[in-house]
């Protein structure tokens, strides 16, 4: 356990510079999105009210009030979210492959550590999970700050205030990241965690069997997908709405557990018996 925690700490440290850069980009870009969207709205309002002599009421009726939706539609707002998602997806592959390639073969050291090799696997997975959760926590902290900034910039007559809950619900991308209910949380993050284990297993297959492993990996990925979504497929194509949504949810937790533990078991076997440096 102690070595596992040390490995997690080590893995976190290896990505920290990029991670801090991502955090910086997200903060700056999203605050810029609030400022630019607000200024743009206020410029329009000033033009309409002071130059075109429209009343505030008429302007609001014609253009609507400024809400947080104006901000979330900006590329400066969702761009860094997309950047973080893409970076972490790439990192899910890179976290393994960087240890194999290059002059300094760190994988030798990792595989020769006096600890279960599965600890290396779990440490890498934990690092990914922590990075994801950290970025979501950042977004949760940023939303009230961004709302406050918007409130400071746009007069109350011209803006439509939203609660944090509404901000999350009206913006799909955030809605996926920050679920509204426990069931959504289990579904979204369960799928995410299982997906990471499946990707790791595919990487292990490729690292063990190289070219043959790519095909085995693709096969494993397809199999994992089918098993995980089996309740949905049965519901849609065989039993036609036989299950209640709650039953589908429970069945998907079961299939998720099967795919997740199966992936960990296969990876453990490969790391112990089949891995090649």
């Amino acid at each position, binding site marked *: 356990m102690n*070595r596992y925690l*040390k490995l997690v700490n*080590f893995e976190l440290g*290896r990505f920290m510079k990029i991670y801090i850069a991502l955090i910086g980009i997200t903060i700056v870009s999203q605050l810029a999105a609030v400022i630019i969207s607000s200024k743009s709205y206020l410029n329009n309002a000033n033009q309409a009210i002071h130059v075109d002599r429209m009343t505030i009421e008429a302007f609001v009726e014609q253009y609507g009030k400024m809400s947080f939706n104006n901000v979330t539609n900006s590329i400066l707002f969702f761009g860094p979210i997309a950047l973080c998602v893409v970076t972490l997806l790439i990192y899910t592959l890179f976290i393994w492959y960087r240890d194999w390639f*290059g*002059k*300094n*073969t*760190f994988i*030798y*050291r990792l*595989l*020769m*550590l*006096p*600890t*279960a*090799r599965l600890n290396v696997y779990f440490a890498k997975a934990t690092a990914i999970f922590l990075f994801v959760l950290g970025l979501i926590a950042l977004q949760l902290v940023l939303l009230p700050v961004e709302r406050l900034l918007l409130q400071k910039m746009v007069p109350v007559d011209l803006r439509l205030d939203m609660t944090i809950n509404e901000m999350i619900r009206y913006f799909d991308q955030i809605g996926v990241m920050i679920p509204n209910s426990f069931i959504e949380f289990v579904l979204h993050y369960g799928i995410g965690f299982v997906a990471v284990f499946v990707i790791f297993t595919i990487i292990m297959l490729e690292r*063990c069997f190289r070219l043959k492993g790519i095909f085995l990996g693709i096969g494993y990925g397809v199999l994992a997908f089918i098993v995980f979504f089996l309740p949905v497929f049965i519901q849609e194509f065989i039993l036609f709405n036989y299950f209640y949504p709650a039953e589908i949810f429970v069945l998907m937790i079961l299939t998720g557990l099967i795919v997740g533990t199966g992936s960990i078991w296969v990876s453990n076997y490969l790391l*112990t*018996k*089949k*891995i*090649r*440096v």
Partner: protein
Amino acid sequence: MIEVKDVTKKFGRKQVLKGVTFTAEKGEITCLIGINGVGKTTILNAIMALTPINSGQILIDGSAINKKSYEKITFIPDAITMLPQMTIGQSMQFMQDFYESWNQERATELLGFFKLKPEEKISSLSKGNTAKVNLLLGLALDVDYLLMDEPFSGIDIFSREQIANVFTSHLVEDRGVIITTHEINDIEHLIDQVVLLDDGVVVKAFNSEEVRENEGKSVVDVMREVYQQ
């Protein structure tokens, strides 16, 4: 004792090892010799469970390798096993964090022996100094067995001398060493056991001292006989 028993290994269709058998005793230096591609590195990787074998058995003091074995056997490959952005000091700290067998006193002694600075980055080291750091990280572990893959490969004569001196020092004393090398001249006088490999099999295994005393031949003489036949 490290026992390699009838080990076979295939890479794709190529049979690299065709039933390799030899033993390496604690307190002795065993040298694996053979041309490039004969499977010397593969044997070391297989001993460390860094590559799977197709058949045969490898035992370390009578047991198959497991996670605890890495506290008593270590492998020094020909490339450094630390991250380029780490300093020598950070690499030592990493080893200390993970290995109970890490001997900080010996590590400090080795730093002085090799004239290395802890603040130097791995990425900025010359090939010779990289080999020395690799050696330091392996030798500073209180292990029973050391596996070294081509420790003299591509490094300057002074670094070679320094590394060769390690074998005559207390740093290697009482440990079992398996070494693969082409630069036999540097360590010929230090080798106890020689395993000559060719085409995936052990063509000859002998005690260098016995051959010297009984037949008046050096290791290189035997190599000539075997490989030039």
